[in-house]
């Protein structure tokens, strides 16, 4: 008779079955190619945003009457704020005012990332508060969730457009206007997680030990919501970047003197037939950034939150 190998032996023994180590989601996430590719691309974009002034750019608001509508790669001149005229290579061409598209696109990265990350954080924070309240304080649940249903019944872009129109566009109002329609989704997610988790034995144990409600929420329930919330957060970030670009593109977003991808494209609309580069370059940057965040989110969802991965 063959002697069983140690691995087979372990698989048979009841005690060892109990301590089979399940690889943690975080470790699986770090090995996932989606997370690696998306994360690296995002880090690169972040680096571009931070290092924008040192990447051969000029002040994105500078213009020069002599350098209007240059094709990508053409050389021209640009006047600095001090009134000096220096020669400059327009890698991505220039717009109809003679501004450097390359500089504007690179500085636009900053706005997009700030808006995306802020909307994700803000909607997560408010959504967590509402979701915990709704899932834990039953008397509040009915009213709060009906209210959230109401917000969800209005298409997100319409809420954002209307709010920005009422408040006039600034970085803060744009972020808040994009955040508001995203809150109900986070609230629903947190609420459903709370309703599941509060039935777990360890929560029951905590309740019977007399742990106060706020401590149960923050010490026992919230830590178990982090993975799905992180996944949701990345998707909101992608959506936030997209909606900001749409708002600016439609002319209702940030003021036109701020270089954002949407603004650059909005200005390039009229001359699109002759000079498609005004729309092409910011469009590619926008698509790649959103793609990177979405790929990262997909990877995180598949590894951290297998339950949600099965749902969609």
């Amino acid at each position: 008779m063959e002697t069983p190998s140690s691995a087979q032996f372990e698989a048979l023994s009841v005690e060892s079955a109990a301590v089979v180590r399940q690889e943690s989601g975080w470790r699986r996430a770090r090995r996932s190619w989606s997370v690696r590719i998306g994360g690296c691309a995002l880090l690169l974009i972040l680096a571009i945003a931070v290092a924008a002034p040192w990447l051969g750019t000029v002040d994105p608001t500078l213009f020069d009457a002599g350098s209007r509508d240059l094709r990508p790669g053409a050389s021209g001149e640009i006047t600095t704020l001090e009134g000096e005229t220096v020669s400059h290579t327009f890698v991505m061409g220039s717009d109809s005012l003679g501004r450097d598209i390359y500089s504007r696109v690179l500085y636009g990265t900053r706005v997009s990332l700030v808006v995306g990350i802020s909307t994700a954080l803000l909607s997560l924070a408010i959504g967590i508060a509402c979701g915990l309240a709704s899932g834990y304080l039953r008397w509040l649940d009915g009213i709060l969730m009906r209210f959230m249903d109401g917000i969800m019944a209005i298409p997100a872009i319409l809420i954002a457009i209307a709010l920005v129109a009422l408040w006039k566009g600034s970085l803060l109002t744009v972020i808040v206007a994009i955040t508001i329609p995203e809150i109900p989704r986070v609230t629903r997610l947190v609420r459903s997680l709370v309703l599941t988790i509060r039935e777990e034995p360890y929560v029951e144990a905590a309740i019977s030990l007399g742990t106060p409600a706020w401590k149960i929420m923050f010490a026992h329930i919230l830590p178990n919501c982090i993975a799905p919330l992180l996944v949701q957060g990345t998707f909101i970030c992608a959506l936030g970047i997209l909606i900001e670009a749409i708002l600016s593109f439609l002319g209702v977003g940030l003021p036109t003197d701020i270089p954002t991808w949407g603004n650059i494209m909005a200005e390039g609309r009229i001359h699109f037939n002759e000079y498609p580069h005004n729309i092409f370059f910011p469009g590619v940057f926008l698509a790649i950034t959103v793609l990177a965040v979405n790929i990262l989110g997909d990877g995180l969802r598949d590894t951290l939150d297998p339950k949600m991965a099965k749902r969609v």
Partner: protein
Amino acid sequence: MWSFLARRVAATLPVMLIVAVLVFLMLRLTPGDPAAILAGDAASTDQIARIRANLGLDRPIFMQFGIWFGNVLTGDLGESFYYKATVTSLIAHRLEPTLSLATLTLLIAVFVAVPLGVIAAWRFGGWFDRMLMGFSVMGFSIPVFVLAYILIWIVSLKLGWLPVQGYQRFADGMLPWLRHLILPSITLSVIYIALIARVTRASVLEALGEDYIRTARAKGLPEARVLVRHALTNAAVPIVTVIGIGVALLIGGVVVTESVYAIPGLGRLTVDAVLARDFPTIQGVILFFSFVYVLINLLVDLSYVFFDPRIRY
């Protein structure tokens, strides 16, 4: 079944009421005199006073809501100061292009996405499946207006196959109507295809694991029949649900697409109204879009009875 229908219809009424409250509050919670905001920048003191009296702005806020909501229920969405017309008539005039665009987009999306999703689930893990999932992430990421310009540039400017922009009424002939709509519809359908294909794949994949699929295969049914009649039918409820939810995406997309392709529909009206700060129109269009969205999702709910006879609460 009738009680199920009645309950579903009754459940949407509170949602509509809350939407109305939110749209109403949007304007009231903005700093400044609502009458002045509604009247626009060019309004005279007389006009502002008339709007104030009309909305009952000197009365308590609940009364104001009552008056406004009563008007909305009778189809009176107020008066646009920019277009010098009632908002209701503006919406009615702009409905055709948007309805055409949305319907065509929906048809393209469903007829492309569902077969793609079924094939991907059938060949789960294969190259087709992986390509579709890759395409779906890209579809979610590429902004509608960037895609619109890429398509205009290639199809209309370089190849010259289709008109660049504009809209032809359906009454002026089917072919010109279609020629103007085909590019916007394809643009708009991409994100929708990504969404529906993903859910179809997941849903059919789940159905394919069921016992009745094994039975169907064991008794020698052709694979196509197993996939369509047995798997897809049983996977229909999540697919129909996501088509309904996706209408929100479609409405958002309509606003952008109509703006790029210069289609004089409701989306274009929204943007123009926002740029002119024409609040009665903005309010009216938002209410209208939300109403349509809720209505479509109600129809989706009701269609469950058709797809899944077990649902008879």
